[in-house]
């Protein structure tokens, strides 16, 4: 009996923590549906228009899509940034797959000279923060005159070793027997890769895509360093530049930025968990 009560209590605590953790999503959506007057009333003190402290309501009193329409019609710069974010993330993912999938397959299943040394190098590089690689990236980008072009962010990210590491673990779990029997039937390396490796390792590929997308959509250090021209900026750098005066716009822009990433998360959640788990397999 006592244990049952304890368990229930534990559940309630964990549930409340979960609600608190997810609260920002709810908060942003509610804010984006409030009219300008309502927002001004709640946030007046923060904007310096009223005394006291900012307040909030659980739900908007008069929900409206006005702010969304305003964003659609009156903020061309938002669309430029949104498109920039899509382009950067899309190109990064595409190039990561083109170079990363074969590399992960090679590390997992093929004979490669100095394989262990190289793979350990990949792990170490994966763990190096941007402060370490920033100057290296810059030296190359500057030499080939790609600074201040979208490629300055795309190319270094495309060769991130993290997705290779994730996919490697999935490829390694493919039983050797299947590959050998295919070989006996006369399949070449490319055929084995395309007809066995990719289909059987597809969950690893999706995991890598989900993890990479969440990161690419969030890039801040790289565009900040490698783009001088603000028209190249992704959303992540644009949002904080909206002043609180435009709170309505800031809320809507935050929600619109959140949507792609939340959709990928919801659609790929199982893969995300598998990917995270794969990184825990000790070498």
């Amino acid at each position, binding site marked *: 009996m006592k244990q049952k009560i304890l368990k229930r209590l534990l559940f309630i605590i964990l549930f409340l923590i979960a609600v608190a953790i997810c609260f920002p999503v709810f908060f942003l959506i509610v804010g984006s549906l409030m009219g300008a007057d309502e927002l001004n009333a709640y946030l007046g003190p923060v904007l310096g228009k009223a005394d006291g402290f900012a307040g909030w309501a659980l739900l908007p009193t008069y929900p409206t899509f006005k702010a969304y329409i305003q964003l659609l019609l009156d903020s061309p710069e938002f669309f430029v940034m949104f498109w920039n974010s899509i382009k950067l993330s899309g190109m990064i993912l595409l190039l990561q797959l083109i*170079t990363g999938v074969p590399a992960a397959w090679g590390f997992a299943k093929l004979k490669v000279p100095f394989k262990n040394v190289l793979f350990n190098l990949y792990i170490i590089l994966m763990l190096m923060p941007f402060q370490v690689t920033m100057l290296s990236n810059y030296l190359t980008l500057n030499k080939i005159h790609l600074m201040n072009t979208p490629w300055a962010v795309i190319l270094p990210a495309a060769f991130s070793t993290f997705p290779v590491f994730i996919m490697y673990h999935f490829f390694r779990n493919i039983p050797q027997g299947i590959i050998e029997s295919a070989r006996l039937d006369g399949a070449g390396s490319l055929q084995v890769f395309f007809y066995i490796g990719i289909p059987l390792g597809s969950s690893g590929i999706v995991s890598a895509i989900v993890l990479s997308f969440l990161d690419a959509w969030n890039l801040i250090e790289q565009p900040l360093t490698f783009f001088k021209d603000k028209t190249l900026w992704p959303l992540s750098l644009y949002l904080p530049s909206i002043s609180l005066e435009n709170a309505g716009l800031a809320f809507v822009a935050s929600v619109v930025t959140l949507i792609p990433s939340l959709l990928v998360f919801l659609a790929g959640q199982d893969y995300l968990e598998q990917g995270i788990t794969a990184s825990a397999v000790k070498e």
Partner: protein
Amino acid sequence: MRNIRKENLEGLAFIGPSILGVSIFVLIPFIDVIRRSFFNAAGTGFTFLENYQTIFHNAAFMLALKNTLRFMGICIPLLIAVSLLVAVFLSSGLKLAGYLKSAYLVPMAIPVASVVLMWRLLFHEHGFFSGMLNHFGIVGMDWMNTKYAFWVLVFSYVWKNIGYNIVLWMAGLTSIPDTLYESARCDGANAWQCFIYITMPNLLPTLYTITVLAFLNAFKVFREAYLVAGDYPHESMYLLQHLFNNWFRDLSLDKMSAGAVVIALMILVLILGLQRSWDKEI
């Protein structure tokens, strides 16, 4: 003989493009970075360790290094302990544990830029947090411009990374065979003893991964700091990345290269040290 050669070539063809890109954008230029760290800013005169002496006597570098290390020293143990606790509870046969786990993962999907708006409203002088404290008679302040800014970062780091770590811990927990617990219980071990003598030792490999990834993600907290407070935040959250951005703006490549080498070495030592101590345990 010929066959082995052919196999090697095939393997190389698969990983070649990736290795080439990594070499061009990171490895080869990093060798140049190491070289530059021993030269003056123009790259014309060999100065040996002068750059290293400069950065270790540089107040900004020491402040950023101190803040970064302090941040990690507080956040990482905190994150590891809290997420382990939640993971153990979630694995204890709780109802709806799967849904709760998903909820804890949501912050991973929230772009920093989106949540910055909430941070700004929350920690404004007249914001929600000050308003709440007002009920208790505590006078609010512009929290991001005080020493408490550091704790806002700690909070947002734990918030962002807790789900990731819970998933890792839970994976570690499920990999422990049930038979171990059963036989321990037969021998009269209670829940606490099971945890200390079975769960903990078996989670050591997971702890290694979690620690290393927690370090990696700790460097990313610059994103929050920058988006909330810009280039020159309160000195309690002045991080290495702020300093590197300033150096980059001034094109102080000499200091940057020495700094990059120092950080790379520290991380390398950390990874190898952790790996060795864990290998010894097992």
